[in-house]
């Protein structure tokens, strides 16, 4: 890879409470220009707060405790709030899971898009509204000239998410962070929104950081995928490899535990391979490898020593003592 667009190095996020926990530790990854990169994990694994850290949006009790975030050669982890405000929306933009709570319910959607042009590009309002209408057309909202005056509650979930995409892409950011962008939507709408995002980003050369609990969805859309478990990246590989040859027992468990369409016709109904146990909460992260209480291949070393990163081909990595 030539100079990556985004480099995250040894990111550490602290959660302050009765004592301080590391909600995310030792997270490193790179995203190339125009690349779609996926971050997969279950709720509580730290994927969303990693995204918030990139946006400079961590708030108490969460705080950045270490590591470097480099955007296009420039370190941004110590940027001032004013610098971050300029960066957000202009160079890094984000789409959230629930568009209804991310949009302002008291403001017409056209105005919320136009705001981007006014705030970031110094456009006047009438010019900005024209551009907002064009932005709505690009995300394929039918009759944008009428929809521009609609309030969020007048739109369906899929349409609201299209508006979010229009806002996020308004200023042509270099990186789009999408945090579970389709989890609240139906499957047929999900397919449309994913296609739309991929298409618009490809046309503009925007890189995507796609965050989801759905490994299938992410592997389908992204070139490379990293899997997080309990605050650490446990495996990263190119998308095809993560399904065809997962190396970490947790990834193997995820890939094998869910019924896949067509499986039953080919092999008959077989008992699903379970991952035993429960997802640990941050206060109960075990010592050593954090997956060890649930791992079928666990040995003594796993319970004592956190495994180091083992590099895999094509910028991949696995964090397991027995990754063989």
């Amino acid at each position, binding site marked *: 890879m030539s100079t990556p667009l985004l480099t995250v190095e040894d990111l550490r996020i602290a959660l302050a409470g009765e004592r301080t926990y590391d909600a995310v530790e030792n997270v490193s990854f790179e995203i190339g220009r125009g690349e779609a990169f996926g971050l997969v994990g*279950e*709720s509580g694994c730290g994927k969303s707060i990693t995204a918030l850290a990139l946006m400079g949006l961590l708030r108490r009790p969460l705080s950045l405790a270490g590591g470097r975030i480099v955007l296009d050669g420039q370190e941004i982890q110590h940027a001032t709030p004013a610098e971050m405000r300029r960066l957000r929306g202009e160079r890094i933009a984000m789409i959230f899971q629930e568009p209804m709570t991310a949009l302002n319910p008291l403001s017409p959607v056209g105005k919320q898009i136009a705001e981007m042009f006014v705030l970031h590009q110094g456009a006047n309002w009438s010019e900005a509204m024209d551009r907002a209408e064009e932005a709505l057309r690009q995300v394929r909202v039918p009759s944008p000239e009428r929809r521009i005056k609609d309030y969020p509650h007048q739109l*369906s*979930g*899929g*349409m609201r998410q299209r508006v979010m995409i229009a806002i996020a892409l308004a200023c042509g950011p270099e990186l789009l962070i999408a945090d579970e962008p389709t989890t609240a939507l*139906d*499957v*047929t*709408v*999900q*397919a*449309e929104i*994913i296609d739309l995002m991929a298409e618009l980003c490809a046309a503009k050369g925007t890189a995507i950081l796609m965050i989801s*609990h*759905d*490994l*299938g*969805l992410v*592997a*389908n*859309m992204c070139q490379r995928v990293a899997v997080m478990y309990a605050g650490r990246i446990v495996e990263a590989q190119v*998308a*095809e490899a993560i*399904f*065809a040859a997962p190396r970490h027992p*947790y990834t193997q*468990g*995820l890939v094998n*535990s*869910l*019924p*896949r*369409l*067509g*499986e*039953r*016709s080919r092999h008959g*109904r077989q*008992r*699903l*391979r*379970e*991952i*035993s146990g*429960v*997802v640990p909460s941050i206060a109960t992260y075990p010592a050593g490898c954090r997956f060890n209480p*649930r791992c079928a291949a666990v040995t003594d070393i796993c319970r004592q020593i956190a495994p180091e990163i083992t590099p895999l081909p094509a910028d991949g990595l696995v964090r397991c003592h027995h990754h063989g």
Partner: protein
Amino acid sequence: MDSCGATIMADALLALDELAVHFTVGSVFSGGVKTLRAVDGVTLDVKPGECLGLVGESGCGKSTLALAIMGLVPPTAGAVALDGRDLKARDRLETARTVQMVFQDPYASLNPRQSVRRTLADPLRLQGVTNRTEVDQRVMDMLAKVGLRPEHAGRYPHEFSGGQRQRIGIARALILQPKLVICDEPVSALDVSIRAQIINLLLELKDEMGLAYIMISHDLGVVEHVSDRVAVMYLGRIVEQGGWQEIFENPRHPYTRALIAAIPDPFHRAAATARAKAKGEIASALNPPSGCHFHPRCPLKAERCVTEVPALEAVAAGHRAACHFRERTY
């Protein structure tokens, strides 16, 4: 051929005959009263020990259908027969012994102020099982069946993880030994790594206790895995039904094809053809499109689809589709 209308099979555990549930919404002050046809003429049956998968997008009427079967919303028209007897002729307690429900969200569906023991014992007491030893024994047996330990009985919902809570929800549904269990998205609120445990448990209990399931899910992978037959619902109507293999390998309704095409398949990138994908979103049940409800989104749309409602007709043994072009395979 399939049962239909008056000729409902005698051996069906559940038989729906042209079931309709309509709601009146709005008022004269807010632009007039409208009728919302949540369920609009559904004929369906479930045999003992069978698992029927019910799929469709949110707003298609799946959950209202479930509530009507449970007797929790009154049907506007048509009939629900459980075990050969009309739901209206059964009292609440009797219905509860036959059909039970497992809900999507195990955080919201358990009473936070009730211990697990009380959550499981209350249905027994309501059914007249008052002997303490017997109640205790049955509660303990049920806990063991769903993979919980005896000491869990004294605990409260907040002390459990999501997967364990769903096990409690399943135990509550099964403690009366019902014949039919409606599972409404039983795993979609759970962590991905926990889902397989719950699906395996549901299938084991089905065999062990001879249960019939209605499995409501938007996850077609799960539906294919667990179902014997599948029904696809769109805006209050069944648009296709048949054996699981027929539905997944030879779908005839464009909506079923669209649902299958929408599943991201990591092994076949971009395999879903643009032709199979549906455009736009589900319409409002308040104002459904004329003719075939699916026509505004359908890649096969013709003039006829706008004016004429397609009937649910047979395409193969046990396989029916409501599409004017159901004979087209491509």
